[in-house]
């Protein structure tokens, strides 16, 4: 009976996206980088951009992403991906350029670069992975770390008196004129993954149409450094994190300001 079933289901409806190399990744079990990577690769394929894309890798867990994508990649110093991407896009305006950054990379050391890339309306796309911690370096407090969240550098829980407040990037960048698209999504339920993919598609489309700067903030899990099982980590995203970081589209420019 089993092999008969095999002949019956011959239409493959889900497979690895062409832009994603068939290799295992270094990411921890249940880490949402993997989902974000697949969404990114699927969107590159959707717009048939693989051969015209230059990716800019951050410093953080995703620094090794260039080993996973069949796309030209340059590695940026910590926090400087938006600046490197600016250099690439200005040199090659007809190429598709994106950065992929974690919250330590973008929201801490790279805040100046991301704000100014957005404010210049740099025609590039940023995928921003917010997992409220520095993953690669072992779970330190990040600007997005929640109040009360224990990390390796906030062992008593983040206290605003000492460490200030978690920073909401998607809303902040939405206030800048240069920003064409800014949204926050999550990937902790199948429905969220679908919406996340739609948002990434919209962001890509903005760049393709030359509408200016686009960013998608993706609430993600870091099971290892949160000290949680992957499924429980997703509950944290759905609960506490989504409360403080509301999902939604914070800016969506209708038509370009310039030709």
């Amino acid at each position, binding site marked *: 009976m089993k092999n008969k079933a095999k002949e019956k289901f011959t239409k493959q409806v889900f497979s690895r996206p062409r832009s994603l190399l068939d290799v295992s990744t270094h990411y921890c079990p249940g880490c949402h980088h993997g989902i974000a990577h697949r969404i990114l690769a699927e969107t590159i394929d959707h717009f048939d951009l693989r*051969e015209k894309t230059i990716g800019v890798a951050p410093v953080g867990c995703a620094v090794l992403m260039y080993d996973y994508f069949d796309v030209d990649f340059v590695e940026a110093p910590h926090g400087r991906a938006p600046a490197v991407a600016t250099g690439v896009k200005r040199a090659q305006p007809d190429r598709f350029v994106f950065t992929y950054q974690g919250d330590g990379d973008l929201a801490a050391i790279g805040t100046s670069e991301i704000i100014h890339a957005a404010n210049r309306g740099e025609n590039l796309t940023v995928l921003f992975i917010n997992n409220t911690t520095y993953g690669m370096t072992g779970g330190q407090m990040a600007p997005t770390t929640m109040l009360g969240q224990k990390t390796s550098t906030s062992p008593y829980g983040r206290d605003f008196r000492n460490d200030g407040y978690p920073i909401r990037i998607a809303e902040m960048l939405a206030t800048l004129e240069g920003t064409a698209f800014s949204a926050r999504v999550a990937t902790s339920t199948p429905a969220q993954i679908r919406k996340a993919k739609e948002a990434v598609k919209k962001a890509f489309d903005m760049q393709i149409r030359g509408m200016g700067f686009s960013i998608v903030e993706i609430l993600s899990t870091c099971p290892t450094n949160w000290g949680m099982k992957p499924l429980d980590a997703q509950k944290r995203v759905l609960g506490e994190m989504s409360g403080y970081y509301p999902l939604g589209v914070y800016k969506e420019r209708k038509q370009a300001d310039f030709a």
Partner: protein
Amino acid sequence: MTPEPVGIKRELMKGNVAICAGAIAAGCRFYYGYPITPQNDIPEYLSAHLPPIGGTFLQAESEVATINYLLGTSASGKRVMTSSSGPGISLMQEGLSYMAGSELPAVIVNISRSGPGLGGIAPSQGDYFQATKCGGHGGYRMPVLAPHSVQEMYSLTMLAFDLADKYRNPVMILGDAVIGQMKEPFVPTSYVSTVPEEKPWSLTGCAGRPRRIIKSLHLKDDEIEAHNWKLHRKYMTMREEEVRSEPTHLEGAGIVIVAFGTAARVSKTAIQWARAEGLPVGMLRPVTLFPFPSREVDEAVSRADAVLVIEMNTGQMLEDVLISTRHHDKIRFLGKPCAIPTPEEILQEIRSLAGEIGVKAGNVR
């Protein structure tokens, strides 16, 4: 003034602007920068002159961002330049280390000012160590060219682009406020490229070829060690092939000055006066500070009776001179940190040196 051969077109231009002319002549069409005295003429000029020729000028939010724009445009295979002064160059150090590690070409201009810290806007040669030993992490090196005239601001910039592409490495022009902000005539010679134009390593989108990665991270064991030795071989080749220096009345000079940039420029006047007094003085002027002209320095020092190292700092190139020769006893130092030595001061030093080594005025060979 030597009579001007008929037909040679000369231009009167500021040193800073001559750098722009040299860059444009060398095909550079991308410039990123940030305001800082005393180099502002460069972004100002290029913001006006690049767009009309299809070039890109972009003022960055910081020098940290600037060097990373450079990294991105260089990774795209385009010639690209930035300029700054000490404090800005300090902010670029990490980026320079990344570019050296990723083997990316670019031209970085430092129109030096006084330091450390905010220091001042007076000229200085206090950035010698930072430039030649490289202020970023990891032990990379960089060719450093030191102009002492507006002509060299123009011609060494053209050379810098070729060296950058030849070695896939950042190259620095180390000027200072004097040469940057003074005007003098120079001959805008035409640019002749010595390197191939296409860059098979650049990131242009992997149509019809395997994807390329430009990075400086090497995590697999002994990969980073091998990479360091590869870079080391590159720097050794620079030492073999790219040393440039200029002798002035070096033959038979009992007293030899070793100086670069503005200090060397001023010394030329002092040498004229001293030789008019019959004092046998000449100069060796390093044009490349890295690779340092060690052999030439050693030869000059061994033949000389006394050596005077002159710098607009408290002694930095002095160390490279000391490394280049064992005749330390002959070497004297005249330092003017954050100030311009006058020909009179240098002449005075030459006279006292001459007295010390018992050279009588008048028997100049």
